[in-house]
């Protein structure tokens, strides 16, 4: 029997096709852009979704690409919340892409450390991952106790540095500046140009300058290199928890707090849900979960870090100064350190 599509059949079919969209529409959604870190979509977000009854659509990418997306959609923003590094959030703020966080809508802001609410709470730091030296526990007997050890000739071809294009590269630059000037690590950012000479002396030890942290991580875990500066605790301690032969050293000069920020996108849809999301992220209970999941310092003063996570006090940097000088340092780093 030949099949003729009647109007009723067509309408029925269309209704069937539209059904999932209609069902989806019943659950409010927010679009969050952030890092492609393990722990976000598999652990943290399902808990927030269940507690508050909305769906989180997440796109994981690096901060600069995230910023580019927000910039491209400035006229009609699609993203509600963005999770980026502070140096990139500073650029977003300057271009008027962010909405200041309001204490009334986000009461947990009140309990945050003062240095976790940059630019008068234009955004908040949802955790402070720690960055120093990642060391290979099978090749080495003990953790380095000072950044000076990285310059030891016994580590020839045994060190990987992260490219200055990635924020964590500030750590070896600060270490070199400290060794060159003798100033405390916390004061070294503004003297960083003086550290390049010392960093050049490290070249014989450098096997690679990487823009691909997973590859560098794999090389360290396989024993090809001993020292890696500087993936932060989100990577190193996470891999250690999975029995990989790596650990984070805590050198006497200090360990640096990496900036993990969360902000509202100006004019983004469902702003109220975005505020709920951020408030939940900053609550003491979720902060404890964040600390354990991301092996980082909580930023809420009322949060209790899980037992076994013993991070020292971290050196918090002036990320605005970093953002203002980063391009120049990228150029210097490539010409003076990376170049053959």
């Amino acid at each position, binding site marked *: 029997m030949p099949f003729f599509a009647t109007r009723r059949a067509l309408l029925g079919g269309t209704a069937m096709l539209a059904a999932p969209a209609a069902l989806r529409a019943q659950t409010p959604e927010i679009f969050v852009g952030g890092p492609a870190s393990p722990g976000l979509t598999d652990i943290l977000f399902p808990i927030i979704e269940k507690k508050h009854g909305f769906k989180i659509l997440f796109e994981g990418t690096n901060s600069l690409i995230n910023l580019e997306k927000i910039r491209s959609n400035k006229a009609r923003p699609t993203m509600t919340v963005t999770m980026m590094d502070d140096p990139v959030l500073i650029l977003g703020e300057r271009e008027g892409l962010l909405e200041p966080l309001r204490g009334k809508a986000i009461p947990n802001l009140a309990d945050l450390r003062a240095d976790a609410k940059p630019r008068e709470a234009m955004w908040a730091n949802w955790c402070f991952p720690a960055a120093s030296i990642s060391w290979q526990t099978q090749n080495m007997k003990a953790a380095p106790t000072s950044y000076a050890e990285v310059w030891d000739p016994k580590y020839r071809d045994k060190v990987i540095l992260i490219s200055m294009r990635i924020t964590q590269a500030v750590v070896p630059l600060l270490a070199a500046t400290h060794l060159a000037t003798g100033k405390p690590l916390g004061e070294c950012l503004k003297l960083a140009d003086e550290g390049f000479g010392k960093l050049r002396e490290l070249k014989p030890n450098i*096997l690679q*300058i990487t823009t691909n942290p997973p590859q560098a991580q794999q090389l360290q875990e*396989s024993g090809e290199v001993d020292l890696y500066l500087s993936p932060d605790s989100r990577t190193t301690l996470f891999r250690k928890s999975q029995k990989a032969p790596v650990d984070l050293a805590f050198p006497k000069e200090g360990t640096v707090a990496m900036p993990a920020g969360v902000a509202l996108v100006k004019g983004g849809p469902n702003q109220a849900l975005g505020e709920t999301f951020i408030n939940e992220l900053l609550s003491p209970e979720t902060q404890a979960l964040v600390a354990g999941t991301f092996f980082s310092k909580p930023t809420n003063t009322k949060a209790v870090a899980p037992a076994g996570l013993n991070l020292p006090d971290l050196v918090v940097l002036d990320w605005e100064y970093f953002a203002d000088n980063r391009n120049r340092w990228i150029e210097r780093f490539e010409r003076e350190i*990376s170049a053959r």
Partner: protein
Amino acid sequence: MKRDPLGLLALPGVGYLALVFLAPLLLLLWSSVRGPEGWTLDGYVRLLGDPYYRGVIAASLQLALITTGGALLLGYPAAFALARARGGWQVVLFALIFLPLTVSIIVKSFGWGIVLRRDGILNWALLNLGLIERPVRMIFTEGALYAGMINVFLPFMVLPIFAVVRMLDPRLPDAAATLGASPWFSFRRVTLPLSLPGVVAGVSLVFSLSVAAYVTPSLLMGDRYMTMSMVMAKAFLNLRDWQLGAAMAAVLLAMALAVVVGAAALQRRLGGR
């Protein structure tokens, strides 16, 4: 002259390419000469006036030339073997040469990293053969980069040469021999000239691809071997210096275009002989 209406079939393809390729390309060229204060050649001046960036251009050219030369040296005999093989052997050779194309460049480049490590298979083999006493550093060296690049781009050299060689009459060398030509003379004066169109196509293809390579140099050497594509990525993503990135892209395009146009002209000349 009456026009062939079949030519109209090309319109959808041409329209699609104009939309997704030509228009962005024109925008890119526009960005390279457009600054905050109007038209300017500042991007090109900064690029070509800076010894560092000139060095990057030279390094990209060197990488592309070595990759193309290496792929030609290995690919030319491979294409002949492929064309002359019969039955099961041809299937095996085909699989060996072209199956790697189905593997992502990222996976292949990571694979090279594993092969070249101190505890990798190459060091293991050299140690067990007694050729070295302790593992040697091979990873993140220029030699490793060239080997990886040739591996990635070899099929693009073999395929066009094979397409030409398989059309050659296999009795040609025998015919030359009956006229007293030595094997070398026969190859130089008969086989090589006839296979040149495939060589030219392969060279232009491999050069154009390797001069613009990004993933393989990034994974096999990182920032120690900056290529033009890596500078473009840095300019657009990190420095947010669109003019510099667009100027580098235009220089890269000009280089690849020069090779492709030159190759096409050479093809026509060879075809006309």
